[in-house]
């Protein structure tokens, strides 16, 4: 492995760990599941915590999907995926058992997009989106552990 590639894998993993830390912090301060009533008139403190949750969820998903996945394949495993479509990267990671399911990863990506953008929604839809994103925190943590173990 060249000296140039190793730092980029390590840097991506470190960045993921940092986002996961703050995501878990927000996660631990929210009483799950969230209710529709809470979304109708959320307290200021809850809004701030949900903002932290959504921001770190989004950044962790971005960093895993856009940096870490390809860096592991190319930098650590020496596989020819420099210019491959994300779909091919996900399939290969699933084959290598570094990703439990490529389709499930796409669900996490869709959840990230819903949290990152202010789509028009009802309070019931907003609480449902957040409640469905919550178990994805531990799923992304497990994926990060698997990737770190492959470096």
């Amino acid at each position, binding site marked *: 492995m060249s000296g140039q590639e190793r730092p980029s894998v390590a840097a991506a993993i470190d960045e993921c760990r940092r986002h996961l830390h703050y995501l878990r912090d927000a996660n631990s301060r929210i009483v799950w599941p969230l209710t*529709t009533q809470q979304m109708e008139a959320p307290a200021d403190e809850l809004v701030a915590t949900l903002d932290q949750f959504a921001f770190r969820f989004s950044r962790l998903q971005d960093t895993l999907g856009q940096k870490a996945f390809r860096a592991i394949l190319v930098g650590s495993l020496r596989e020819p995926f420099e210019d491959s479509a994300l*779909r091919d990267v996900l399939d290969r990671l699933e084959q290598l058992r570094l990703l439990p399911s490529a389709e499930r990863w796409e669900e996490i990506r*869709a959840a990230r997009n819903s949290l990152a953008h202010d789509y028009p929604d009802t309070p*019931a*839809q907003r609480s*449902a989106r957040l*409640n469905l994103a919550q178990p994805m925190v531990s799923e992304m943590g497990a994926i990060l552990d698997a990737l770190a173990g492959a470096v």
Partner: protein
Amino acid sequence: MRITRDTATIIRDTAAELFGAPVRLFGSRLDDQKRGGDIDLYVETDLTAEDAEKRRLRMLARLARRLGERKIDLVVKTPDGELPIHAIARREGVVL
């Protein structure tokens, strides 16, 4: 309408799998004078908000697998509320 017939078929079939309901295309992809842009989709369901959201994520995931990385927005109307965008999608949208 600026999506291919194959793309329309994949979207329609995926909506049928997940919602058993028709899907409408609305927004900029209906305008032949524009270029690019998100694919805006609209589905109505009687499912609860939570079940509908599970299926919404799964439908977006399957579309990403089947169509590649495209910018797709999927608005799902559930019985818990009516939003202005729902009326726009019903009025302007084309059933695929």
